[in-house]
């Protein structure tokens, strides 16, 4: 029991959230353990982003309980930003260590070295002094990943990280996240509309459509599980058919 608690980085129990009696989330309960790579999927309006907001503490007045054991690193949805903002890649990455430094504290040489290491790991070190506005979509997402990792998270939350990245870039991004997860022994919770990639990258799947429809290992998820949450025919949504054929022929 104690071992379970030590491994658990996120525990959600009976989470319900309504806006003016309109149901957004209802009775959500699940756990995520250290070392897990969980994919959160569901159609538009399923409550995925609301759930993440509740986890990272941006939502108030919900029912139920959310327990986070450790720090959270958060990679938000890609959004257009002011490309002429005078800020460098390194300065944005340093935002991730603000909390550990504290109010009004300057970065030390050690902090700069740590940022250098992270940028090298994620492959954007040579861009460290570039203005953020000159980065491509993929480079920007990698920077967001560095910023999230700089917080030394126990749980890394990725909100549609594939946005702004081309197909080749997506595969290498997910590989990178998987390697980082293993080397840092953290848990990853990823929201994505790219179901094929979710099935390839994650080891557990959380199906959400206002309520929790499934939370199981990726190999146990059937097309029927997904049909329950998506109103359209699942065949149109799944891209990685090979994965299903491979898993269900076994």
């Amino acid at each position, binding site marked *: 029991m104690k071992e379970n608690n030590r491994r658990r980085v996120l525990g959600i129990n009976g989470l319900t959230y309504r806006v003016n009696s309109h149901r957004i989330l209802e009775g959500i309960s699940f756990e995520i353990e250290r070392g897990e790579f969980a994919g959160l999927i569901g159609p538009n309006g399923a409550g995925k982003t609301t759930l993440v907001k509740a986890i*990272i503490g*941006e939502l108030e007045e919900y029912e139920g309980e959310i327990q986070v054991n450790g720090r959270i690193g*958060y990679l*938000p949805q890609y959004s257009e*930003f*002011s490309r*002429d*903002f*005078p*800020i*460098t890649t390194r*300065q*944005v990455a*340093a*935002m*991730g260590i*603000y*909390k550990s430094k*504290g*109010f*009004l504290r300057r970065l030390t040489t050690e902090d700069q070295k740590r940022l250098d290491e992270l940028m090298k790991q994620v492959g954007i070190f040579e861009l460290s002094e570039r*203005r953020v506005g000159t980065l491509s979509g993929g480079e920007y997402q990698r920077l967001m990943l560095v*910023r999230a990792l700089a*917080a030394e998270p126990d749980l890394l939350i990725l909100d549609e990280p594939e946005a702004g990245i081309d197909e080749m870039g997506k595969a290498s991004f997910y590989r990178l996240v998987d390697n980082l997860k293993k080397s840092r022994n953290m848990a990853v919770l990823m929201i994505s509309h790219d179901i094929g990639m979710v099935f390839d990258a994650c080891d557990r799947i959380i199906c959400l459509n206002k309520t929790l429809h499934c939370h199981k290992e990726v190999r146990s998820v059937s097309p029927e599980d997904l049909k329950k949450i998506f109103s359209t025919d699942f065949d149109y949504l799944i891209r990685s058919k090979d994965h299903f054929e491979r898993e269900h022929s076994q």
Partner: protein
Amino acid sequence: MTEFIADLFRYEFLRNALLAAVMVSTLTGMFSNVVVLRKVEFIGDGAAHAAFGGIAFALLFGVSYQLTALITAGVFAVSIGYFTRKRKISESSVIGMLLPLSMALGIIMLSFIRGFTPDITGFLFGNILLVTRDDIWMLVFMNIGAVAFFALFFRELQYYAFDERMASHYGVPTTLVHYAVLIGVSMSVVASVKIAGVILVTAFLVTPAVTSKLVAGRFKSMVLLSVIFGLIATTTGMVTSYWLDIPPGPTIVLMLFVQFLIVFFFEKILRRQSGT
């Protein structure tokens, strides 16, 4: 030019005016960066109109206009913060509502003044003859406060302006920075009223940063350049206005815009030459 310098030594009002204009440009130059990067250019206008309500109150009751204008601009700033954060109304909407409200209250109060009606054009368009020693001292203290705020909260201001939501997620005290910026902008506006006037003060809070943003690669250099651009425009504006015998506030505003045009086209030519 030599005549201007000679008159500077001769007339106290001119020395006061130049000193005030220089300090207004450094003060507004600093805050203009946050205003432009946060895309809340409307806020200067709003604070200035809010200050007008305070000025009208002072004229009606015969009290110090600095204090009442500071109070109304401060209430305006805190109200923006309150309504945008608590009730999720956009900053532009709140400013758009409060701006005419304060102006309307000011006009109503002015209508109660019996007999001699004070000339308010000086407050609307600026009047260097109105600058007093007290104004200079107020500007000195505000500049010291603003420099200290920017030096201490530099990283916080940068993160707040770049991405407030994520800055808050990573522990930056964004609410504190937000209110401090709103109050700082309002105080800058009140301090600038005699030089720029309620109508023109927005130019002081927008143009220097828009110009510096064209060439600055870092937030730090943007802040420094904004102050420098503000100082150049103020000094050349004051000298030009004296030379041509035209109002200094509007002349400074013209200089700010000419400076913007020069940097805009010069930067374009430089880029074309370097092929970027």
